[in-house]
């Protein structure tokens, strides 16, 4: 496939991406051939172990993309304070790096973390080994090829300019294929589970897989200009495109940045705290509430725009109703810590998850508030939105990922703790402080901006020019860059710590961490 793309390509983006696929494909063929050729006779005990190789690889990719995405984030933040900080090359310009940040961090960092942990969680909650040895690798490697195509494409200027779906048509198609495989693998493994009931974490992972597929396909339907070129045109236009885009965009938040990570939370929090989930019944309400309500609310990104009023009303009202299931999940998580508060105090890993649940509650409250039309008239287009985004992504998504990583990595290495337990503590405080500095700066920035834009003096004249509002942002943009740098430092520490831990692996005691080889439940 890579060869075909590279050979037939009519533009440089397509040619490079074809070459990337080709090199990756060849590399894999050799690797696989090598493994098959001098493979030791198949290990009959394989089925008695979980298949954690893909998870390990996925965690590495998570950390690698964390670096890419966060460095891009800090850089982009710095550019808004020092616009001249960048060399005059197209690839380092703000507009091209910003989607590198968003895609790199959401899909690269977030997505790899979700896939990697979903394999881990799925196997343990089903007490069954992954249904297939090859497809987990294809899913992960294929997914990373998508991310790499997307990000290098933006640097070269290939973009559909649909927020969070900027990747061009061929990358979109490729992702669909990867996703179908992922879903199949998930279902096949689930069918092998030992416990008849499916655990809540898997409901969320399933919702993530299914709904993301639905959103991705509809929003990305496009007509390529040529089968050999990277350029395409979205079939949707104007107001319909806007609604579909934000139906997608909001639910990328909902089913990627929320549902998937709730799955993660529902596994790693009780495991680390050693406590049962506080309420099964509340789980049911929050899960179905989230799945049903979330899908309606995308239109809150389009208040007061040319989108018809009636859709805005639906978006607003469902956003308010959505608060209840959202807080139900946050509350369920926090109540699960009842009886484990001592651990929260002493264990930075558990504290990561606790703070994640708190920020989840905070950002969903903020979200529902911002979704109210008059509030949105102030916040929309401003840095308040960016503040909200990062209270969700830094405070919730990134924190829960770090909590999961710090739970998972020592276990994978057969150790009690990370190699440098103190560094986890440092990371925790850097992350919390960085998030607070970032978010508080952006709240101030956004509210200042919004108020300046709409301020009228007593004589009915606008008080400020647009440029004055730009100038007022400078101190906040500087603070944000500093908060981001703190957060990045924490992530670097985490990466080094993981490396040290996995290098110091011991042989694992698999007594309690292995599949039950019994009758499958279905």
């Amino acid at each position: 496939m890579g060869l075909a793309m590279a050979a037939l390509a009519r533009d440089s983006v397509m040619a490079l991406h074809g070459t990337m696929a080709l090199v990756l494909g060849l590399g894999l063929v050799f690797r696989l051939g090598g493994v098959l050729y001098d493979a030791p006779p198949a290990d009959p005990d394989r089925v008695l172990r979980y298949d954690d190789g893909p998870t390990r690889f996925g965690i590495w990719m998570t950390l690698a993309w964390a670096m890419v995405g966060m460095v891009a984030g800090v850089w982009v933040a710095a550019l808004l304070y020092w616009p001249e900080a960048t060399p005059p090359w197209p690839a380092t310009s703000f507009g091209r790096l910003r989607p590198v940040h968003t895609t790199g961090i959401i899909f690269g960092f977030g997505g790899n973390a979700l896939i990697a942990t979903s394999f881990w969680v799925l196997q343990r909650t089903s007490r069954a080994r992954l249904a297939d040895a090859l497809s987990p690798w294809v899913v992960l490697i294929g997914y990373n090829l998508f991310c790499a195509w997307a990000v290098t494409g933006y640097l070269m200027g290939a973009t559909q300019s649909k927020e969070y779906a900027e990747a061009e048509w061929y990358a979109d198609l490729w992702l669909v294929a990867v996703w179908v495989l992922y879903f199949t693998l998930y279902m096949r493994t689930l069918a092998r589970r030992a416990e008849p009931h499916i655990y809540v974490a898997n409901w969320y992972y399933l919702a993530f897989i299914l709904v993301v597929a639905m959103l991705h396909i509809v929003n990305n339907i496009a007509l390529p200009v040529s089968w050999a070129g990277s350029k395409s045109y979205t079939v949707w236009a104007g107001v319909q495109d806007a609604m579909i885009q934000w139906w997608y965009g909001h639910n990328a938040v909902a089913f990627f940045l929320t549902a998937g990570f709730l799955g993660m939370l529902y596994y790693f929090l009780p495991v680390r705290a050693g406590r049962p989930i506080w309420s099964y019944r509340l789980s049911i309400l929050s899960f179905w509430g989230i799945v049903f309500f979330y899908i309606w609310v995308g239109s809150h990104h389009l208040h007061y725009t040319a989108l018809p009023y009636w859709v805005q009303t639906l978006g607003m009202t469902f956003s308010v109703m959505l608060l209840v299931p959202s807080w139900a999940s946050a509350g369920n998580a926090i109540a699960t810590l009842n009886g484990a508060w001592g651990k929260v105090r002493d264990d930075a890993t558990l504290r990561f998850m606790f703070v994640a649940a708190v920020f989840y509650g905070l950002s969903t409250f903020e979200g529902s508030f911002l979704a109210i039309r008059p509030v949105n008239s102030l916040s929309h287009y401003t840095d308040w939105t960016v503040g909200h985004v990062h209270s969700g992504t830094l405070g919730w998504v990134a924190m829960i990922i770090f909590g999961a990583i710090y739970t998972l990595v020592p276990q994978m290495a057969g150790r009690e703790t990370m190699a440098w337990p103190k560094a986890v503590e440092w990371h925790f405080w850097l992350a919390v402080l960085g998030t607070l500095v970032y978010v508080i700066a952006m709240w101030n920035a956004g509210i200042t901006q919004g108020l300046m834009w709409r301020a009228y003096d007593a004589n009915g004249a606008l008080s400020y020019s647009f440029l004055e509002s730009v100038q007022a942002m400078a101190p906040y943009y500087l603070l944000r860059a500093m908060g981001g740098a703190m957060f990045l430092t924490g992530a670097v520490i985490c990466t080094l710590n993981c490396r040290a831990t996995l290098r110091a692996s011991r042989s694992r005691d698999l007594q309690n961490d292995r599949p039950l080889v019994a009758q499958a439940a279905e």
Partner: protein
Amino acid sequence: MTRTSDPHDLPGADPHTGNRLIDPVTGYDTTGHDWGGIQELNTPFPKIAAIALLLTFIYAVIAWILLPAWPTGRDYTRGLWGLDQGRMARDGYQAVDTVRQGWLTHFTTPDFAALKSDPLLMAQAMPAAARLFADNCAACHGAAGAGGPGFPALDDADWLWGGEPETVAETIAIGINAAEDSRVAEMPVFDWLEPADRQALATHVAALPKGEAPADSPGAALFAENCASCHGDGGTGGLMAGAPSLTDDAVIYGQDEATILTTLKQGRRGFMPAWNQRLTPAEVNLLALYVSTLPEAKP
């Protein structure tokens, strides 16, 4: 907390055994499942969640009744309040505009001298003018009206077209070289002149503002022959006479030789947008008054 006596009746109890572990911390029973070590408590549904859900639902229903909300095929429900986004926008705009018209109407038929001598009115009007200038004009003429290469300064007393507020208002409204009825200012292309001649002209013109241009140089001769028709004898013309004076500091592009050479080679056709489509006549007059006071405001 009440508990039904028969564990089989309890959804959540293991249907085969009825076994439910009791969690020592909370005192609740578990659902009986075990997922690789994870268990769930059968904590009853918290009432507060149900109440919250109900309250938000009531809020939503009220909103649906009052506001446009549900699609009905080719139409949608309008809501009891009968709100329409476009009309609300126009009303909102009207509301601020009414406040503004309280003083802005004075600017519709301008008697600039009278306006200027009304300190109360000026106190109301000048902040508005400053904002209009910053959002519309500052991009070219600079935040303080100091201009830049290609864009004339407005804060000096030298005007291309005249500094009377009436003249300035006219310039702002119709623009320069912008639309059919704009002011016209076109400096023809002199690329057909020998480069040496252009150089001589440039030397001559660059010396004009300093008053150092000798009257008997080849440049002066060329100037009289080619340029004086527009720029006047000795370059003292004015745009009202057809072309800007070249002897004062009211410069658009620059008074150094290199810039003048470019002007000669390419010609010039400065473009000042017409604002009568974007701003109301009163706003144009307001800006004209503001602009005409810029030289005084300059420290």
